[in-house]
């Protein structure tokens, strides 16, 4: 099967968008660098363009200039063995014009992060070594046990999932961010714009929810995870824009058509797999080999699933609804008991035969995800690695582990 048109279109749009961003910055307009776990909607509503730190890190990694970027970080006097992925954007600013991907990341006017882990705040504070760059940080609070299945409660009854006080704290911080942005950029925040952004995002994620459900129910799997990832992720970076919403609708339509046609990634489909943890999707040839040799296909990744279950928030108070979206977004993916329960539900919903769980260094509670899946009678292959640092991951080793695991499932 050929590549999804939605994926091709998203990748093309992203290039064009980034070129436009560079032009706009060259013309003197501000832009922000934002960590993926911090709210971006206020920037969208205020018309301040932003680059998501993790997206840029993926570009740096894909262009194989991550080691050089980390060298820049080390030369500056900061550690190059901590938060390697988060710090790639900072390091990439020191790459030569020849090395820098996509013409290079322009200097941001402000950086925005949530204080996750012990060092994320410091990674972003390091940008302020250039005193013309502003920095705003959200607190990171801890997950509480939810009152029920979070994916059912979160869209409207978010207090029961995340706790009212945590959400209030983040809503207050949203207001502080607005003040900070108004002061720095001279722009004026308009609540009606934020409400429109929030409505567009709910629409976008409703399409993602339908796409996820289509893929979960289809036998055989109609699309590759490596294809849905760009078709979901890139529109996610543009959440709250009409393009983002429309891209999600196009993906839904395309997947629905493939299901109707009976399209298959691999025939016969012998093993359905789920990938938990950060992806290693850049090496597509590895996944092709599993499809060709074993009829094994990855039907699930967190990117589409979290877009489907994690983002929708219906509420009339946009500032609070936004807080309710972001206050626990990483908890949903990593913290017990929220994350383990969700992975089990998704594994069952997609009828997977096994799960490959990539456990990164900085992820809390990983063992409880594995445990919950195993208790639900779903075999798990745990790969313990720091996929953040390109210098420490041995793909050959990963492939060997996975080959053994899949053979075992088919025995």
């Amino acid at each position: 099967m050929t590549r999804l048109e939605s994926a091709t279109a998203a990748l093309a749009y992203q290039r064009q968008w980034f070129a436009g961003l560079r032009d706009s910055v060259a013309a003197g307009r501000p832009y922000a660098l934002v960590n993926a776990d911090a709210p971006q909607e206020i920037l969208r509503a205020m018309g301040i363009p932003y680059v998501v730190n993790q997206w840029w890190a993926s570009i740096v990694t894909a262009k194989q200039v991550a080691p050089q970027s980390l060298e820049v970080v080390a030369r500056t006097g900061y550690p190059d063995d901590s938060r390697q992925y988060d710090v790639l954007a900072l390091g990439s600013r020191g790459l030569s014009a020849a090395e820098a991907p996509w013409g290079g990341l322009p200097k941001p006017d402000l950086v925005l992060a949530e204080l996750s882990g012990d060092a994320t705040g410091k990674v972003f504070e390091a940008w302020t070594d250039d005193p013309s760059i502003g920095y705003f940080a959200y607190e990171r609070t801890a997950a509480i046990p939810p009152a029920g299945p979070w994916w059912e409660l979160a869209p409207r009854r978010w207090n029961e999932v995340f706790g009212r006080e945590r959400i209030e704290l983040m809503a207050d911080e949203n207001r502080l961010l607005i003040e900070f942005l108004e002061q720095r950029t001279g722009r004026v925040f308009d609540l009606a714009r934020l409400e429109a952004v929030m409505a567009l995002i709910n629409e976008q994620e409703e399409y993602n929810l339908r796409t996820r459900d289509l893929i979960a129910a289809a036998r055989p799997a109609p699309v590759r995870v490596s294809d849905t990832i760009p078709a979901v992720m890139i529109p996610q970076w543009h959440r709250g824009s009409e393009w983002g919403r429309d891209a999600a609708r196009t993906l839904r339509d395309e997947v629905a058509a493939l299901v109707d046609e009976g399209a298959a990634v691999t025939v016969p489909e012998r093993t359905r797999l789920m990938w938990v943890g950060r992806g290693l999707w850049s090496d597509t040839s590895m996944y092709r080999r599993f499809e060709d040799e074993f009829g094994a296909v990855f039907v699930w990744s967190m990117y589409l699933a979290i877009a489907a279950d994690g983002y929708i928030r219906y509420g009339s108070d946009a500032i609070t609804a936004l807080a309710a979206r972001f206050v626990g977004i990483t908890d949903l993916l990593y913290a017990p008991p929220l994350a383990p329960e969700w992975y089990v539900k998704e594994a069952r919903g997609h009828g997977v035969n096994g799960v490959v769980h990539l456990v990164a260094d900085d992820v809390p509670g990983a063992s409880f995800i594995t445990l919950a899946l195993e208790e639900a009678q779903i075999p798990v292959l745990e790969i313990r690695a720091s996929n953040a640092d390109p210098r420490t991951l041995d793909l050959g080793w990963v492939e060997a582990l996975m080959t053994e695991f899949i053979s075992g499932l088919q025995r």
Partner: protein
Amino acid sequence: MTTELERAARGARQAAAQAAASGQSVVGIVGRDVPALLVVAAGARPFRIAPHDEPTDEADAVMGRAVDRAAARVLAAALSGSLDFLTGIFVSRDSEASVRLFYTLQQLNRRGRFTVPVHLVDQVHQNRESTIRYNTYQLAQMWEAVERWTAVPITARSLWQAYVAVADVRGQLESARTERRANRRVGTVSLYGYRVACALPPAESLPLLQTALAEQSLAEQTRTDATSPFPVFLTGSAPLGDEVYRAVEDAGANVVAEDHDWGDPILSDRLPANIDAPKDDLLRELALGRLRGAPASASSTMAARAEATRDGIRTSGARGLLSVVRPYDEAPAWDWRRQSELAGVPAVMLRGDEAEDPDRIARAVESLRAAS
């Protein structure tokens, strides 16, 4: 020479377990951000858990290996059953490792592998009104939890009594700190002092601290300036035991001040000025006390840390800055660039698996002395 203070520090867990066996409620504390005041006011014996135990395979498997050893050691203690005597455990949100430890203990609770109730005091750290409100709420939750655990209500009277007792201990620690800043008290003794103050109830720690202070002044009269050890400010990871301090002393130097959470920063967290204030105001003051205390590496900006280190070096008269950073303790290595720039004295950082090796520490002290 093993002093009474050192013996008490080493024997604190056993003493706590004995108190529990005789029917007293003992409440475990992880980290600096849990106010022992509320525990004492609820009639319980506060016991801050030191990272004594060697991590076990089970601890590593459950929590993952890529976590600071201090947390892995506390988890190993919990898994070994040696903390089963506790009525409950409060965990600070002072680092990622502590949060991970909390999630892990909570899950072990759910699975019945560990039965002591665990509560996270989720105080965050930016100096903002929204943060202060959230932290005040967190302390109110802690208040409820400790009353539930001990079945003893916190009253105005019990608060006042707890306040007086805790303030007395702090007074002793402050005097000891003054002696130490004059390089008249060694770092190890100071470390034992803080450990005793955190791991024993005020009634037991106070006389120990008083005696130690008196003995120290006596020993002092016999020392001359020529034998004064080289004064060092210690930053980086909070030490697991006293090994780093001993290594510094064996190298002819003295840790005269530090910025980790088993040392001087304990005194920087002020008690509320008005203990009779209404509950909400009191808790707000308590939250502010920590927020205005010395910045800890894992929860503050590099800028705040660098300034605090510079000030700490000035007030303590340190002539060298030593940073010892364990693997998986990410924050201190980020602080280092600005800390060393602002220190105003020679500075050396040791990182990695061997950071706490006594020979490396001796060499680092030697190079600091040579450069100063």
